[in-house]
């Protein structure tokens, strides 16, 4: 089955992102396709490459990155909503330079794009599964 996943909560404060990750991992291991993971609301904070949990805790961001979900063109399909991201200070190189801000915090396994990507995923996939509170 072809799945899209939406993650609506940030890492650590809520378990939604962990549960979504476990779901995605299990789906892939069982031969299903994860077409796209879309990060919305505080979910955009799952993409910060500055995330440094204590060593005995799971690393939510690296967990997502380890799934290596990409499309046929080799682009990451871990997609962060641009409006939600900019509002919360989650920037890639391009958004940072567009806004004359030095530095950026988006992990390279993720990419920033628009909400249309969420709707497209809903249309393309057999199931869109929403993880939040």
């Amino acid at each position, binding site marked *: 089955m072809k799945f899209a996943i939406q993650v609506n909560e940030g890492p650590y404060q809520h378990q939604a992102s962990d549960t979504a990750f476990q779901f995605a991992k299990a789906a892939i291991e069982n031969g299903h396709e994860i077409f796209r993971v879309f990060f*919305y609301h*505080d979910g955009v904070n799952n993409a910060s490459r500055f995330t440094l949990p204590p060593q005995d805790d799971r690393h939510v961001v690296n967990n997502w990155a380890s799934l290596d979900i990409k499309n046929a063109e080799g682009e990451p399909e871990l997609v962060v909503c641009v409006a939600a991201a900019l509002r919360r200070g989650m920037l890639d190189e391009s958004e940072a330079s567009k806004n004359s801000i030095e530095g950026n915090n988006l992990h390279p396994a993720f990419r920033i794009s*628009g*909400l*249309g990507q969420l*709707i497209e995923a*809903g*249309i393309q996939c057999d199931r869109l599964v*929403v993880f939040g509170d």
Partner: protein
Amino acid sequence: MATKKFMYLNRRSSFGTVYAIESLEVVLIAAAFEQDVSLAFMDDGVYQIVEGQETDGIGMKNFSKTFHALGDYDINKLYVSKESLEERGLSESDLMPLVYEDEDDDWEEKPSVKVVTNDELKAIMSEQDVCLSF
């Protein structure tokens, strides 16, 4: 592109968390994809379409007026839980008079809001292809 039935389920009030406004942002973007869109309001979500919201005192953007634009985007199925209204001492007359122009009926202005029981809402939800919960 295939047409699917999309439902946006709103369960939280307008303010206090960001879910309501960011849900509305998804709905507006989704309008461009020409899908069969409906919205449902239940639990505290019914507060989102209460008439006469005033935000000057809390420094938040009053986005409630945006709901009036939905009709122009062919989004005219807004279901409101009867039980959720009653639990909060609200009735249909407390809600914004949201309307759309029916192109199949000489552009007559018709109400977009429909108060339904939770059982009816359950049946409508089970018909959906995609249900996004906010």
